[in-house]
């Protein structure tokens, strides 16, 4: 059976495509070294539009109005610029209500885009640009540790990681955040109140790595200007041991948080990347796995939610669960040494 894969890897080859939502200009060059926050491409779009109904204002048919329109697509107009002048002894003028660029003209109307807004596409990971996607973005490659999460607030930043969690089920409280942590990425365990998120913003920190977050805090977390990556889920959950080991042993290293929201269709996930110097390119992670004995797996549902274990045996057929349901299962030896029977659909391969 096909298995979902969660990447928690000490050293791997990381290749990520970064693309603009609309066509734009790629500023990065092939083989350029970039940091996660570097802008690699940008695109502009209008914040709003202004439709000037020339025909209605001049009381003309659309085709008659078209003959009087003085601007064309692409023209940049200052506010008050005459767009069309009517006929008669005292001709009426139609003027641009705001400064803008003409994006359509015809049918007796002129459409202006007003208030240009620029979207900056950041690299998201530190690495080397290995491919340019014309007008869209880049492909970036790096080597290092990769820890994928389950929730992110859409921000990106890089900083030295400080471990304030002390243990996998640690809780981060506002009182632990002192000015010495300014500019750091905090490995923080669980957060249970909005004050902690706001205290981190006041320092400010460069990011928070959390095991879990209360759903009631998601709205506040989305508003934070620094990246937040949640590794395990919602409520009060400890960090899975694979992520905890990797992160806690890499304290004081520079880490990048790309807190991209999880999108199951595109495959985008919030990620923590610790770029490492390598002499030889490490192997790329497997994106597709089939359940098999020996795999490291993570349990996605109670009991033992979040536990890491080793898949020992795939049970034939289907098994009756305590819940009363029947499903294909596996025997998994979790870290406590206990062997548990887990439905395959409640497992993901860690690797």
């Amino acid at each position, binding site marked *: *059976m096909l298995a979902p894969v969660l990447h928690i890897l000490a050293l791997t080859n990381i290749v990520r495509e970064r693309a603009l939502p609309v066509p734009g200009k790629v500023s990065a060059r092939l083989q350029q070294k970039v940091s996660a926050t570097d802008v690699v491409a940008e695109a502009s779009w209008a914040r709003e539009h202004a439709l000037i109904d020339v025909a209605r204002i001049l009381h003309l048919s659309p085709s008659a109005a078209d003959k009087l329109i003085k601007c064309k697509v692409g023209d940049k107009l200052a506010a008050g610029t005459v767009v069309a002048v009517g006929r008669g002894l005292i001709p009426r003028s139609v003027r641009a209500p705001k400064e803008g660029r003409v994006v359509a003209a015809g049918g007796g109307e002129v459409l202006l885009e007003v208030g240009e807004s620029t979207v900056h596409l950041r690299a998201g990971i530190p690495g080397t640009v290995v491919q340019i996607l014309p007008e869209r973005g880049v492909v970036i490659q790096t080597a290092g540790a990769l820890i994928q999460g389950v929730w992110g607030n859409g921000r990106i930043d890089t900083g030295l990681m400080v471990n304030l969690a002390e243990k996998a089920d640690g809780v981060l409280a506002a009182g632990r955040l002192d000015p010495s942590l300014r500019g750091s990425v905090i490995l923080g365990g669980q957060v249970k109140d909005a004050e902690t998120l706001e205290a981190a913003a006041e320092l400010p920190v460069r990011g928070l790595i959390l095991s879990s977050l209360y759903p009631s805090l998601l709205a506040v977390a989305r508003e934070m200007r620094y990246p937040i990556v949640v590794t395990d889920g919602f409520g009060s959950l400890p960090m899975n041991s694979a992520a905890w080991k990797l992160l806690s042993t890499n304290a004081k290293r520079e880490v990048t948080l790309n807190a991209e929201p999880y999108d199951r269709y595109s495959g985008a996930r919030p990620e923590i990347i610790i770029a490492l110097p390598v002499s030889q390119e490490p192997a790329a992670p497997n994106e597709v796995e089939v359940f098999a004995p020996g795999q490291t797996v993570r349990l996605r549902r109670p009991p033992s939610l979040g536990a890491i274990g080793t898949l020992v045996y795939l049970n034939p057929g289907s098994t009756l669960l305590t819940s009363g349901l029947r499903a294909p299962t596996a025997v998994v030896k979790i870290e406590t040494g206990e062997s548990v029977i887990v439905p395959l659909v409640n497992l993901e391969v860690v690797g």
Partner: protein
Amino acid sequence: MPTSLVDGDSLLAVDIGAANTRAVLFDVVEGQYRFLAAGTAPSTVEAPYKDASEGVRNAIDQLQSTTGRSLLDDSRGLISPTQPNGAGIDVFVATMSGGPTLKAVVVGLLADVSLASARRLTETIYARIVDSIGLSDHRRPDELIDSLLRQRPDVVIVTGGTDGGASRSIQKILEPVGLASYLMPQEKRPAVLFAGNQKMQDEVRSLLGTLASALHFSPNVRPSLETEDLDPAARELARLFVEIRKHQIKGVDTIDLWTNGHFLPTGYAAGRMMRFLSKVYGTSKGILSVDLGGSAAVIAAGFKGKSTLGVYPQFALGENLPGLLNYTTLEDILRWSAVDISPGVLRDYLYQKALHPSSIPATKEDQAIAHAVARQALYLSMQAAKREFPRYAAILKAGLTPLFEPILAGGGALANAPSPGQSLLLLLDAIQPVGVTTVILDQNNLLPLLGAAASRNNLLPVQVLESGAFMSLGTVVSPVVTANYGSQILRARMLYEDGTEARADLKFGNIEILPLQAGQAARLNLQPASRADLGFGPGRGGTIPVSGGALGVVFDGRGRPLNLPEDAGRRRELIKKWNWTLGG
């Protein structure tokens, strides 16, 4: 003579769901169509696969292993038609519910007329309405353009104007749609369905033809102000849904090619099946199908050959689960739980489950939470669907569920419950049927596939339905009555075919069972209390033939509407008792 009787065409049907893809084989056995076998594999619509056809091939692979029949060739293409060596398949159909919920904008004239029709039309596919534009919209055209650019709809559904009626107003409303599409990158432009004034088709074509990613026309949903006819437009929208999915998800085009265009949204196929069954088996009662899955809750009902269909992604049990709280409260969900669970734990559950929609409960407590959520989701879906049932639907009391015979139930939450009793109690709580009805469990989720198959072979659905591929849970007797807890509301006497009899006294607030095995029939004499109504009139009884099922004949004496006790402890005790009565 139907072609199938001559040729005995074999039929392979595939459903691409949010979590699983299923391949189901039907063929002729002893002169009758039968459901032979099913293969299941995880759906591959999502990353890292992003190719729906992979999951389809894997499900067919599994079916090949089960049946020993080769259906795919060496390059994993479909073998069709059936080869002399028995390999392959004659007919292939498919349904799809997996994939992201479509964003829809509805455009019409009057809120209560064409826009209401557009909304009902949207509820026949897996879509949520992100904006509604009508005559009463006070936004300026440029504000509408900006709204459309922000919303980035996948589909725009345009209604409005009776045939030959208003055209200028629709044209005016459509201009912002055209301009917004023009401003969007080509690959992100919405598809458009025009189901309004038929005289405007040329104008609409010239306005939107080059700007929409696809432009489809259907007969007017409102040919006159008094008449609504959604069926032709729903058929066209179903086709447009598949076109949109072809753009969105790799592999859908291959499957569409295999089906030769017989590829439908799963919910729409279920609705088509209800219309079909309503025509074939139509009685004064309606026919109801409910399906609760990861992509949507689907309520399809047939009334005298007409069907209503509600596809509600907002009540699905998958990735949209936290959104359920936009329609209900944690407390309203927890009222269904037999286990004491805190609102905080439930909230965490909803968010956590949305991360891993295909996961299943492994513990009793997790199962209790899952079923409480499923009850409330199905209850809300039924409340929404009831608003769309026709006025001529037979009812016993305003606001209650109309009379249905039978009720068919499918989807993961219902078909895969730990026991038939748990499936039935979930249905009784959420649907709250009235009178006497048969409840049938579609444990193989065949109904939508039969709906898709019906367009290729109208004999197959009837023969498969009558072949025992579905599990009858039994006959349910639900008096409409309000009484004091414990007071007697019904006496029942069942006369079995072998001449023996059994009796039940139903007290208000209780559930009782008289055993009657599947395949058996009996005569049931019902004597309700003075104000209890079973469909024969208040206090009136009668003797009716009943058929058996996994649970026999079930008497639900909890009243309609079902009012659960306010006291949480008492409520949980009762839920446990009802569960126990139905076999736990």
